[in-house]
């Protein structure tokens, strides 16, 4: 049973435009969400996170939005650059009785930025 879902296996976006990556979760007790970026033959790298007490967190070109009622979060990248081409993983965690603080991962979305 997938608790964190990224329903788009891939996404293609023109350079300079906005990239929007989506993530849905099923457990309303998750209280912390993270996005990771992964290049081929490398490990995932932490990108941005958001606590459930917020609905938006911004870091440069990256903004994460959280909609708790819809159990949905999204990562916006604007403007998209060629170096953003990678696989993006969404992850969620909760306290001891939820996930024991361990991260529950989505399957990833491959983002391709076209020049």
């Amino acid at each position: 049973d997938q608790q964190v879902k990224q329903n788009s296996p891939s996404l293609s976006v023109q350079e300079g435009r906005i990239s929007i990556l989506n993530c849905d979760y099923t457990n309303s007790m998750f209280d912390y969400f993270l996005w990771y970026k992964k290049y081929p033959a490398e490990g995932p790298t932490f990108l941005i996170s958001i606590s459930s007490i917020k609905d938006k967190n911004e870091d440069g070109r990256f903004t994460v939005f959280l909609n708790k009622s819809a159990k949905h979060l999204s990562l916006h990248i604007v403007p998209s650059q060629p170096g953003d081409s990678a696989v993006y993983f969404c992850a969620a965690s909760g306290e001891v009785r939820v996930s024991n603080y361990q991260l529950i991962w989505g399957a990833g979305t491959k983002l391709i930025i076209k020049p």
Partner: protein
Amino acid sequence: DTAVSQTPKYLVTQMGNDKSIKCEQNLGHDTMYWYKQDSKKFLKIMFSYNNKELIINETVPNRFSPKSPDKAHLNLHINSLELGDSAVYFCASSLPDRTYGYTFGSGTRLTVV
């Protein structure tokens, strides 16, 4: 200077062999993890150690045994390798405060033939 380093990067071995993957972190993190990325690209946690003590042990065959000689190292030993063990294995580390996320190694691609 690599923060989380794991060796080897590639490992090709025959069924039935025993192999080890090593992981070291120089970040001073208290917690280390082993993840498996399967053929469907899901990242699944296998083990988690906090200050050399096992705190998470997911449903993993007994053939997999983690060993943490100190809090900077977490090695993974696999006995009697099977074809289904072929995957990419990632080591990671983190601070107790989960807001900082995990730092991952670059992965070990294990191929069992």
